[in-house]
């Protein structure tokens, strides 16, 4: 099913846990063994849904749009990992959390999806009502970068 979905979206299918696969504008994030978060350009929800519905019609699956449920933003810069580590308990060293690693995790008292899109860039997704909480914490002062 997941392979078919990837195919329909023009993405390579990957079973590697906690890794994102991407093409130009679309990405699929492994969030669980039977769960992918598909991300497309803004407003592409219906288009993606259409593509997938056709491809998956005969296969057991669940496809649910959550583009309004989550807010995404980018944390970038030399201090990005340190700032995230104010609330996120994961090891964000590039060796442990390389580019294109993605996972659901926690940020203080919010759940987030964290995806390292570049050496010093992370995409953070969180429930829309949690976004102010997460961003306020990230914006607190005193965030000198870790060596």
């Amino acid at each position, binding site marked *: 099913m997941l392979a078919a979905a990837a195919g329909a979206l023009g993405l390579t299918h990957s079973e590697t846990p906690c890794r994102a696969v991407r093409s130009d504008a679309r990405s699929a994030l492994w969030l*669980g063994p039977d*769960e992918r978060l598909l991300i497309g350009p803004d407003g592409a929800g219906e288009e993606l849904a259409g593509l997938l519905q056709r491809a998956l019609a005969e296969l057991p699956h669940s496809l649910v749009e959550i583009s309004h449920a989550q807010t995404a933003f980018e944390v970038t810069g030399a201090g990005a990992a340190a700032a995230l580590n104010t609330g996120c308990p994961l090891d964000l060293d590039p060796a442990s959390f390389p580019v294109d690693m993605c*996972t659901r995790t926690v940020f203080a008292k919010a759940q987030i999806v964290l995806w390292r899109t570049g050496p010093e860039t992370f995409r953070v997704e969180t429930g829309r009502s949690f976004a102010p909480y997460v961003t306020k914490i990230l914006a607190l002062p005193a965030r000198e970068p870790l060596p």
Partner: protein
Amino acid sequence: MLLIECPYCGVRPELEFVYGGQAHVARPGSPAECSDEQWVEFLYLRENSKGIHAERWRHTHGCGRFFNALRDTTNDHFLATYRVGETPPPAALERAAGPRP
């Protein structure tokens, strides 16, 4: 805050998990046919082991999957984690029986 190895995602901090109680407590196939004793057993009676304990965790803030774990409740060391439906890995049980590092 424990470190727990999710069988899908790897080692993660306890903050991402929710404890799910004792493992391998099967819900009776036909509850209607259970006696009150059998039903209370399923509902409430737990081993509460002091020592090796088979338990469930859910990687709620991760892959979302339930899985099983063997943990020594006298020191909170995990001996193994394994997927739902699997039996505890024998090696871990052996290790549990023998001397520990």
